[in-house]
């Protein structure tokens, strides 16, 4: 009896020890992640002013200047990428959840889509370089938007399919029973029921691409000047951060931190919005 109790004490101690390690791991992990965010705010807020929004990036070694061209470029590229990728993603997701729910092809597409979802984004950049930049002979915002669209598609496909599968089949059957053709059932019943979830997917995709750097490096390249010409290289926040952070100029480094703060704030806002919308959609 006493021996058993001693043994049990040992097991208890082991358990406490390992669980202590779990506490420690969580403490370290969460602390590091918050230190990163705090550093970001601390270093980024310094140069944050309205000038950042109204002035273009300064030349090397100069003081002053802002990030206007990079911010505008990022907005344009993100918007175009989303605008190209979203319809394709929604339509493909629609096929998988509605017309081809049990088709063999749907399983294959789902599998491939899941792989594309986590595939290295730099490879997408190389791909678009091969099919757009090289044939066109120059870097352009079009190519940048295309590489972002390739990243948007898998995210939207996934969420659209999942959300449409959540719509109860009774709704579809009721609509079909009053004589609605399938396409109208999908567009007016299924889409409406799954709307919040589908918008969540698009928001997540926007959040993902607004911070993407690697695919833009050799598609949209970068631009020191303000430009809205889609057929020319275009500046973007991530590309500017990459260039400025590795430079020896202090002002450039400060602006890189400010850009990083702006991107993080945008991404976190979008993600929170998406979560909020997603959870409110489930409730209703």
């Amino acid at each position: 009896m006493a021996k058993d109790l001693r043994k049990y004490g040992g097991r208890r101690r082991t358990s406490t020890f390992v669980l202590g390690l779990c506490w420690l791991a969580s403490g370290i992990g969460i602390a590091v992640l918050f230190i990163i965010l705090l550093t970001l705010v601390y270093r980024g807020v310094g140069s944050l002013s309205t000038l950042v929004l109204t002035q273009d990036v300064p030349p090397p070694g100069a003081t002053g200047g802002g990030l206007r061209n990079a911010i505008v470029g990022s907005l344009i590229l993100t918007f175009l990428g989303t605008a190209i990728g979203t319809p394709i993603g929604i339509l493909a997701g629609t096929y998988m959840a509605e017309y081809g729910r049990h088709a063999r092809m749907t399983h294959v597409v789902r599998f491939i889509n899941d792989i594309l979802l986590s595939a290295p984004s730099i490879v997408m950049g190389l791909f678009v370089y091969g099919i757009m930049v090289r044939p066109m002979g120059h870097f352009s915002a079009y190519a940048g938007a295309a590489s972002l669209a390739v990243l948007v598609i898998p995210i939207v496909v996934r969420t659209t399919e999942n959300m449409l599968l959540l719509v109860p089949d009774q709704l579809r059957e009721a609509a079909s029973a009053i004589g609605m053709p399938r396409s109208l059932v999908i567009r007016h019943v299924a889409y409406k029921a799954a709307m919040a979830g589908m918008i969540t997917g698009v928001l997540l995709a926007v959040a993902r691409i607004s911070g993407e750097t690697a695919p833009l490096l050799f598609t949209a390249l970068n631009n020191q000047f303000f430009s809205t010409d889609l057929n020319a290289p275009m500046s973007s926040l991530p590309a500017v951060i990459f260039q400025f952070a590795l430079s020896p100029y202090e002002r450039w480094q400060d602006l890189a931190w400010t850009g990083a703060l702006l991107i993080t704030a945008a991404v976190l806002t979008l993600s929170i919005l998406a979560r909020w919308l997603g959870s409110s959609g489930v409730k209703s």
Partner: protein
Amino acid sequence: MSYVPETDRRRVETLVDMTIHDATGIAARSRARVLKRLGRGDAVFRAITKASAIGVLIVLGAIFVSLIMGSALAFQTFGFDFFVTESWNPVTENFGARAPIVGTLVTSFIAMLIAVPIGLGIAIFLTELCPPILRRPIGIAIELLAGVPSIIYGIWGLFVFAPFMQEYVQPALIGAFGNVPVLSSLFAGPPYGIGVLTASLILAIMVLPFISAISRDVFETVPVLLKESAFGIGCTTWEVIRSVVIPYTSVGLLGGVMLGLGRALGETMAVTFVIGNAHRLSTSLLAPGTTISATIANEFTEATGDLYTSSLIALGLILFIITFIVLALARLLLMRLEKSAGS
């Protein structure tokens, strides 16, 4: 009722008959037309959605074809030697992928070695230990951090973490292991701050939220009944985790870890800032190195000459194939999990 002549009455009746008949005829015809139009719209919509789904497959195929075509020149020139040559010389145009391939595998391996235990620790903390009030906020915070762009981790690594490593961690490592036979070669050389070890650690920090979030989701699939039975026969919390939770979720955990590995292998910006971009294989983890994605990001726009560009695209193809295999395995494992959970 007033008198209506027989002939007129018949005439009116015929007229009414004809009108009714015609009306149903027109209605039937127009309904047929509408149905036909709707049917056509249906077929068109169906075709468009199907084409989009096929489009996803085409994108994957096009990526492969484009990369293979782009890298053809490099493989023709160097053949199999491309994989084993360490030299990467833009001047003599002699390129080999050994250093970036090894760098990619080593950094990802070390990153997983660190991130997996800590990530599992966080997942266990969230599912078993955390006070219920904090569970949701911490869980959401970790999920949000998983979405922070990797360039943020990169810039933090360059300005904050690398100096910290140079000042404190690396000298301590050199001091501690400098005289230990095998380990001394792992921690040799001057503390640059940047290098393979720093890149691996940044990578670990970056995949940490991802692995924590996915492991937590997997842990939550364990039926409460199973855990309670184990507690009921006197298991301690750790014994429940080790003998019930982890065996029950092993397939899903492995899938999640592989997904994390897939991310780490292809990660570009977090690594590029802090790895040092040196095409030299060194036994020391403190020395600068390179990875496939860092090489491409650093050199692609400056690559002059077709062979140089082609060699970089060849690196991209190798990276894509490696990650494709890892991610495919991860998905197969997770699919097996879904199937067993569904039955």
